[in-house]
């Protein structure tokens, strides 16, 4: 890591990490007696850890200037490893949270282990820890290959990657000790939110600066999606997190909005976090790695344009479908429902585009589990967007809302689409990045694939069943015209499905552990000169292109 930095870069890196450490120290001092003080220490330790790394490598030999004529891949490598670490951590907590609903005393009477606290640990770790790191790592890789330009400087990619992971650490450690603003998927408190804005602005600057240095006249479609992801997530994050802290020494803040306006803002954020974090960014991944791995060009340029602008325009209207039959004015609900249904057009255009790209390469899908991950991801993307549009219909929503059906739908997207496209992309990326001929064990990728698919199917079927049964029980009347079931009756009926769900999640987790082991062993394998050459040949676009000029 440090070996790729010049002496001047190392000084800047050290200065930044010491500055962050001082901020942590200040927070620890101001926030004495409040949970925010604990976070001050977390920040301090994290920043000291980073400075230790820099100091350890400080007097190492400086890299020669020829590095500037190559792509900058060190942040991508670290990002991949971090993504897999967060995946295993977040999925393990997911299995635990699922088990709590079947066996509630698995908290061992500890406050930090209760369902309400570790549920956001699970969601944040997988969405932001795993998903976010996978997005940052792949975006840096894709950006350089499709623009044929090196990242603009040496420090800012590290700042984005490590700064983003600091945000994730603050978020997750906070839930254990009770720091949360209780806005779903936006639980971190005000100071973590401000830090994320700083990191995100740098991320955007890296992107735009690299685009402006590009050698390709056109901006490749994957970059449209990554750009939309960065820009819109920034807007959503800032607006939804507007809040007034109790004081600078308090972790607690009060949201600027209340009641019905807060509900609309929250679900505008919540649904579009799905749209632009969990969809747009991963579509960027799909539009690069799937055609690359299949060895075929994208099926239709025109479809790419339609689906991109369709998603960018229409998703932002859809959030209000989370609030059917509530105190939100009817006209907003109707708008949300309408756009959610029309949204099926651009979603299926993307899914169809991906699958049609595989025409002529289906034999590869059969033989290559990596490509199969991506293919199945595109199928799940199509299925779960269809389900989403369907559930946004008011009449369907009256049954599905508040039930496990929603959980099933979300996981069809999260496990089937987001995680699978990430695993596929990472399996494609690892041999390229570490210059290996192939992954350590193709058989393990095969195992991972089938475990992930089985886990997803078991999970989703369990939740479909429990959700629909739940919804139906709540609204069933007996002959005398009174409600037939108490709430607890519906809860008892869920028990077997909750066990099945935990089992499905466990399968998925085992797959991710096998994947991490496989990646670790691939990295540890010695790369032969021959393998290095083979890896180089796998480099997209670049192999036939002239090398970059130094300093570009």
């Amino acid at each position: 890591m440090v070996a790729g930095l010049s002496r001047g870069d190392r000084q800047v890196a050290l200065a930044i990490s010491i500055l962050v450490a001082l901020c942590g120290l200040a927070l620890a001092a101001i926030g004495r007696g409040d949970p925010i003080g604990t976070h001050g220490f977390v920040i301090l330790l994290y920043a000291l850890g980073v400075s230790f790394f820099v100091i350890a490598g400080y007097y190492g030999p400086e890299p020669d200037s020829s590095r500037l004529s190559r792509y900058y891949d060190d942040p991508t490598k670290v990002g991949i490893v971090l993504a897999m670490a967060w995946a295993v951590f977040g999925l393990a907590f997911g299995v635990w949270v699922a088990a709590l609903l079947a066996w509630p005393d698995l908290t061992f009477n500890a406050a930090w282990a209760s369902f309400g606290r570790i549920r956001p640990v699970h969601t944040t770790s997988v969405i932001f820890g795993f998903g976010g790191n996978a997005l940052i790592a792949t975006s840096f890789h894709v950006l350089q290959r499709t623009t044929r330009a090196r990242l603009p400087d040496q420090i800012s990619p590290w700042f984005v990657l490590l700064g983003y992971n600091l945000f994730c650490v603050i978020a997750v450690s906070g839930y254990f000790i009770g720091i949360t603003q209780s806005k779903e998927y936006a639980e971190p408190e005000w100071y973590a939110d401000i830090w994320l804005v700083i990191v995100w602005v740098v991320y955007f600057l890296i992107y735009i600066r690299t685009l402006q240095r590009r050698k390709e006249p056109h901006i490749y479609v994957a970059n449209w999606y990554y750009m939309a992801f960065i820009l819109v997530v920034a807007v959503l994050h800032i607006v939804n997190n507007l809040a007034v802290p109790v004081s600078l020494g308090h972790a607690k803040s009060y949201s600027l909005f209340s009641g019905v306006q807060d509900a609309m803002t929250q679900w505008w954020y919540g649904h579009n976090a799905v749209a632009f974090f969990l969809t747009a960014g991963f579509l960027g991944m799909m539009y690069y790695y799937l055609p690359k791995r299949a060895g075929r060009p994208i099926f239709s340029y025109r479809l790419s344009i339609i689906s991109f602008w369709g998603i960018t325009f229409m998703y932002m209207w859809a959030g209000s479908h989370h609030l059917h039959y509530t105190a939100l004015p009817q006209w907003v609900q109707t708008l949300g429902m309408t756009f959610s249904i029309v949204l099926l057009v651009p979603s299926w255009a993307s899914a169809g585009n991906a699958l049609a790209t595989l025409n002529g390469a289906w034999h590869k899908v059969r033989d290559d589990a990596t490509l199969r991950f991506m293919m199945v991801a595109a199928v799940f993307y199509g299925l779960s967007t269809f389900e989403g549009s369907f559930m946004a219909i008011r009449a369907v929503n009256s049954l599905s809302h508040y039930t496990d059906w929603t959980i099933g739908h979300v996981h069809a997207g999260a496990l089937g689409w987001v995680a699978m496209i990430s695993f596929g992309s990472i399996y494609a990326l690892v041999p390229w990045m570490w210059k290996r001929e192939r992954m350590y064990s193709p058989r393990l990728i095969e195992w991972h694939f089938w475990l992930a698919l089985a886990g997803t199917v078991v999970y989703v079927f369990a939740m479909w069943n429990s959700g629909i049964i739940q919804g139906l029980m709540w609204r069933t009347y007996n002959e005398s015209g009174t409600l037939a079931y108490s709430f607890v009756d519906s809860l008892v009926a869920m028990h077997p499905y909750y066990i099945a769900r935990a089992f499905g999640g466990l399968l998925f987790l085992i797959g991710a552990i096998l994947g991490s082991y496989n990646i670790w062993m691939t990295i540890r394998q010695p790369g032969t000169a021959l393998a290095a050459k083979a890896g180089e040949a796998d480099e997209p676009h670049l192999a036939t292109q002239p090398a970059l000029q130094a300093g570009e």
Partner: protein
Amino acid sequence: MPSFHRKLERSAIGFVLAIVGVSAIGGFVEIAPLFTIHETVEKAPDMRVYTPLELAGRNIYLREGCYACHSQMIRTLRDEVERYGPYSLAVESQYDHPMLWGSKRTGPDLARIGGKYSDMWQTAHLRNPRDVVPESVMPRYGWLEETTLRTDDLGDHLLAMSRVGVPYTQAMIDNAPADAYGQAAPDTAFATGVGERYGAATNIRAFDGDPSRLTEMDALVAYLQILGKLTDAASTEATLPPTEAPNTEAPKEVPKAEATKADGSPAVARGG
């Protein structure tokens, strides 16, 4: 279209501006009017703010992530109104920063739980839910009883709430710690101040059964017992503005919370 797009694809800044412009429209059309149209939130003159103790309880509810399993939004559907009580109005969460409408019901909706069960039941239920509802999958929160409530900063909390628009008076802010103590200690001099500032109908009692100590259990139970009781607007149809007429799927005669309780079915006794 492709030729225009081919030009757009060549400009990084143009592309950025296009994305921001195109994505901004939907959110703007749906959100901005909610802040300006007066029909968004009904008028309810009897609506009161949370007392410092209730607000502290609400913050514990947030901290423990109770929103992950309990909604606080009764929809305008017949079965929900019959199970939980009158459907929720926008005005009822007017002072909720943030709102807690929720997205999942692993447990029942809590929008009208206030007054439905005794303090003793609530305390026993939080101590170990399976003591009173054997089938429950809720975690135990017994340690709330042993944790002393932090009150020294409650004035700051009320001040921050007033900054985001909740009408707390200066007297309320100044007396916040004393009011929090007084609300759970009915036989002390502090108790009278709470009634004066927040209305005679305020619950003033030792919520966890022990008036000598102010615990987090006191605060959480105080909060739970006020849910659905900040205003009567939901049970009196007259306050509904004409544009927000009740959905046809809800019964014309909205049963009061008391009526639901009075039917005495085992369903209610076991948690609604």
